[in-house]
């Protein structure tokens, strides 16, 4: 059954919905409407659901009770702390939302980028290490330097909470001033102005169609091929690429590349393709759309990614911004059939193909030949042991000329 109250509000709280700085104190009063038969001693206060101590109350009149709040903390929720005046039975008579916090600090670290010179996305950081405890609004503004009016960015949260996207009407070869305004109930803060030309911050999509394949039977190499991002065709700029790769069960990426992936190798090795060492430090593979990775482990699965950086845009010397890495592509290096270890005799080798064949041969000899009963696989093993011992002795004595 609903309890429908009369038309008038049962009580009035003052101040109603105040905004306060952290650490400030407040005295609030609750005055019961004359229509209600309640007196000051019938009332009590709660803040965010918790009863406030009677020691902080004071009766200011027959139907007015005050409460003193000292050194307020930041608001528990952004919708405001709930300060409520109750009647003795717990019923709610009136409430007031307290907004306790700090004014905003200057937003910082504004970084912007343009996708294919068509738009501009900027992100920033709030500037307060802790919280303001109040809802803070951020507005990104921009204008052409020296003239023009302020424009306001409309599409927020496109690249995270503190970001905005400007989709059109941006001029090239023009310096822009960009800044962020933060405002909340307690004040406003404006970031430093960032100046940039769209052409300074161009990035593009990652390369598409990345293919990784084996190079014939070569165990330590993989060939990487990709397509340049389609946007490159439209503009007067070049692209340079970077490759990174890792083995399947490692989380550590290695970055590789060589200035001229297909050109002659350095050091005058002749017209062979230049190879890449897996531990080479960050470098670019030039503007070729293929590259070979070398010095890899045989029989291993590798994950490869490529990214792209537009540069020499309209002939400028500046580099752009690296794109995201392409989705990883995997391929494996071939594993050779040879047994590792080569021709050196090893004492412990019991399972070589040669030994197996010898065993079969001796078995046959026993059946079909007479007088060779001393021949057997055990003799062969003894011979191997003798061979290993004599090798060691030889090495200890010194190298034979």
């Amino acid at each position: 059954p609903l309890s429908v109250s009369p038309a008038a509000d049962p009580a009035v709280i003052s101040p109603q919905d105040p905004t306060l700085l952290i650490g400030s104190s407040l005295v609030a009063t609750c005055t019961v409407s004359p229509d209600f038969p309640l007196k000051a001693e019938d009332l009590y206060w709660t803040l965010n659901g918790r009863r406030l101590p009677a020691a902080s109350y004071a009766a200011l009149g027959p139907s007015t009770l005050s409460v003193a709040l000292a050194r307020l903390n930041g608001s528990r929720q952004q919708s405001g702390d709930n300060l409520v005046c109750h009647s003795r039975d717990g019923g709610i008579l009136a409430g007031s939302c307290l907004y306790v916090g700090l004014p905003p600090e200057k937003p910082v670290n504004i970084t912007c980028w343009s996708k294919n010179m068509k738009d501009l996305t900027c992100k920033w950081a709030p500037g307060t290490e802790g919280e303001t405890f109040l809802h803070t609004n951020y507005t990104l503004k921009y204008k052409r330097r020296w003239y023009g009016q302020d424009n306001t960015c409309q599409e927020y949260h496109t690249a995270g909470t503190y970001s905005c996207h400007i989709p059109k009407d941006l001029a090239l070869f023009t310096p822009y001033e960009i800044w962020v305004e933060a405002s909340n109930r307690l004040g406003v803060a404006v970031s430093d102005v960032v100046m940039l030309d769209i052409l300074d911050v161009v990035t593009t999509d990652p390369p598409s169609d990345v293919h990784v394949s084996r190079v014939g039977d070569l165990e330590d190499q993989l060939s990487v091929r990709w397509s340049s991002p389609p946007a490159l065709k439209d503009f007067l700029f070049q692209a340079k690429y970077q490759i990174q790769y890792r083995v399947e069960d490692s989380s550590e990426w290695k970055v590789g590349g060589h200035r001229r992936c297909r050109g002659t190798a350095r050091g005058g090795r002749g017209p062979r393709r230049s190879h890449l060492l897996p531990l080479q430090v960050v470098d670019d593979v030039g503007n070729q759309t293929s590259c070979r990775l070398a010095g890899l482990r045989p029989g291993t699965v590798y994950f490869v990614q490529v990214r792209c950086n537009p540069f020499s845009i309209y002939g400028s010397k500046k580099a752009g911004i690296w794109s995201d890495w392409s989705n990883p592509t995997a391929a494996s290096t071939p594993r050779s059939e040879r047994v590792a270890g080569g021709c050196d005799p090893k004492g412990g080798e019991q399972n070589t193909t040669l030994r197996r064949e010898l065993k079969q041969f001796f078995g046959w000899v026993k059946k079909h030949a007479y007088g060779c009963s001393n021949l057997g696989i055990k003799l062969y093993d003894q011979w191997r042991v003798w061979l290993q011992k004599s090798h060691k002795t030889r090495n200890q004595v010194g190298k034979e000329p």
Partner: protein
Amino acid sequence: SPTGDSWGIFTFLCAALCNLPALPALNCSEELGAGQSIQQTYDLTRYLEHQLRTLAGTYLNYLGPPFNEPDFNPPRLARAERVPSATVDLDLWRGLTDNARLAANYRAYSRLLCYLRVLDGQVGMAELRHRLAHFCASLQGLVLSIGGVMSSLGYPLPTGPAGTPAPPGAATAPNDFLKKMDDFWLLKELQTWLWRSAKDFNRLKKKVPPAVVTLRLEARGF
């Protein structure tokens, strides 16, 4: 996400319906439409009930204690009566005709949707706004679905300013705390409406002849 899967099922249901073959032995094609329409509406009501549980929890936490306390039961001030109340005499409710009951549902959800949209515009938190927007879209779907049921049963849609209540500005809460109370009651009423609508549609489903079963029997009869 689970909500995504529910919508997937719902969309599939709609697609399957569109591809039902038209058999010559089929009569009362309108009833077939009504039956499936009611089932859809029932499913949507249950889906919204589920969504509201999460949304209400998040929103009440945003309002802060005591609003998010389980036993919170504030007085219902007269001004808050503008939100369509779901609690009426149950016998009275059951005594209504199907048409009247459907119309009451249609009007109530249209108004509730409007109030929710206003709420959405005022909330500061991006995550909450996102959830509210999603819920409003689903609720819009429910209003349309109820309209579809009414049409398929041959009832006229409620006319007049049912879809648009008095402009929210006229009756906005005079202070932030009272506004929080209004928000609380809006969510509470929405909860009760959805709970009762589910029962209504379940009952209505049983009244309409089971056309799907009829379809199968007649197919076998060929």
